[in-house]
């Protein structure tokens, strides 16, 4: 089988990049997916979208993504809203820290603001605000439907003749004379001059087959969803001191996450500890939540890099090889901008958002990691 480009991974990154490549006139594209499209992080994630980060790279890339989300939403019928984010602060020391964060964000054009408990009450009328000292509001942030974000463009890709090979595992990259020749899958070889590895947690294993070690470690994460309600809570709310969050998904379910002690690169398993922490934190802020039913609890991974920033772009040592992995928990929100940048790289250009060039793999080889003003989210 021969293709112009092989995309490994049919998650939100792989699918949106393929769509972007089609727009640039590339036609013979094969997408290889080991399970079913979206089965990795894309269909597990919180679906939050924000540019309120603490590094120039994150802010600029996410700002571009936020510009693109409404365009994609309109083109593919993906539900998307800008209902904001709210970081709720219950300790004095956190307020000082966040004032600096907000200053940085404002300087880069992200309109975050420090607000008081009464404004929190206005934004979230059903929330108990007694313990809240202050909060940070990001009105530019939002959320989108992750299923529509993958499946709607996918339908379009199929119509345009892209081969989507599900249940097909890419085992090995084929490289000769430092040039990509194709991919070895469990259903046969696909020859191609350009290969994009956007395989989430599997990306590291694949690159290892040609001797490249991506510095990615998988951190288990835990989330649950409740039954649905008519939408009445708009922002995604983060309780900073407990590293927990809640949001009302566009379909109406509450999606709740909380950090519990975890180790890297272990199999993720369900833990009662998560349910206890998440339930305690959020029923405290929302007493009515006690009577709400949990429908489902699942786990997933944040693919973490040493500097919590993704690895995006061409692998210099191998002609025709591109990677997009290690999103450290922020892949979904970034996807439209990543797809745009990758399509630019693959068609011989450079990303419009120049900060993408700082997110290359080579920065780890050089020891030149991305600097954030603080580790954040």
């Amino acid at each position, binding site marked *: 089988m021969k293709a112009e480009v092989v995309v490994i991974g049919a998650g939100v990154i792989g699918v949106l990049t393929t769509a972007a490549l089609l727009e640039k006139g590339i036609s013979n594209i094969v997408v290889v997916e080991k*399970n079913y499209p979206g089965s990795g992080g894309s269909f597990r994630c919180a679906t939050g979208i924000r540019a309120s980060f603490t590094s120039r790279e994150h802010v600029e890339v996410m700002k571009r993504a936020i510009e693109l989300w409404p365009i994609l939403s309109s083109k593919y019928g993906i539900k998307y809203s800008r209902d904001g984010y709210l970081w709720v602060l219950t300790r004095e020391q956190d307020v000082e820290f966040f004032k600096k964060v907000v200053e940085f964000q404002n300087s880069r054009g992200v309109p975050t603001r420090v607000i008081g408990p009464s404004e929190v009450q206005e934004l979230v009328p059903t929330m108990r605000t007694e313990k809240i000292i202050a909060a940070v509001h990001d009105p530019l942030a939002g959320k989108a439907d992750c299923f529509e974000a993958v499946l709607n463009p996918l339908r379009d890709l199929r119509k345009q003749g892209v081969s989507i090979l599900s249940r097909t595992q890419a085992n090995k990259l084929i490289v000769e004379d430092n040039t990509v020749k194709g991919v070895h899958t469990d259903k046969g070889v696909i020859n191609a001059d350009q290969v994009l590895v956007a395989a989430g947690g599997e990306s590291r294993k694949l690159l290892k087959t040609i001797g490249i070690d991506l510095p990615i470690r998988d951190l288990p994460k835990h989330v649950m969803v409740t039954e649905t309600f008519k939408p009445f809570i708009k922002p995604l709310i983060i309780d900073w001191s407990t590293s927990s969050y809640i949001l009302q998904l566009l379909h109406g379910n509450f999606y709740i996450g909380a950090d519990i002690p975890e180790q890297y690169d272990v199999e993720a398993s*369900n833990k009662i500890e998560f349910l*206890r922490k998440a339930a305690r934190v959020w029923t*405290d802020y929302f007493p009515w939540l006690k009577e709400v039913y949990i*429908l489902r609890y699942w786990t997933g991974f944040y693919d973490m890099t040493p500097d919590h920033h993704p690895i995006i772009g061409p692998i210099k040592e191998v002609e025709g090889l591109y990677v997009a992995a290690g999103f450290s928990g922020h892949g979904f929100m970034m996807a439209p901008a990543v797809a745009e940048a990758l399509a630019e790289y693959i068609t011989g250009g450079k990303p419009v958002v120049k900060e993408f060039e700082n997110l290359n793999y080579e920065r780890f080889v050089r020891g030149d990691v991305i600097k954030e003003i603080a580790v954040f989210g």
Partner: protein
Amino acid sequence: MSQQDPRKIVVCRCENVTLSQILEAIDEGFDNLELLKRRLRVGMGPCQGTTCLLMIARILMQKTGKSFEEVFLPSNRPPIHPVKLKNFAGGGRES
């Protein structure tokens, strides 16, 4: 299948998904339970698929010729039955 209008046959009662929506989705290429679930939300309601998923498996088998083992079961997660948050909010050493 009966002579009834598939647009009027509700298969997933929790999410109000009709037979015609399911057949259409299968035709569009969403030809397994995992994809149908994400595309149509079948099995995502309070019953978590205990009412509809077996029926949809049968529809898939009839339409695609796949065997039961090939179409069933999509990934299963706890709790088996919806549980109120208050059951986890109290108890333990701290309350």
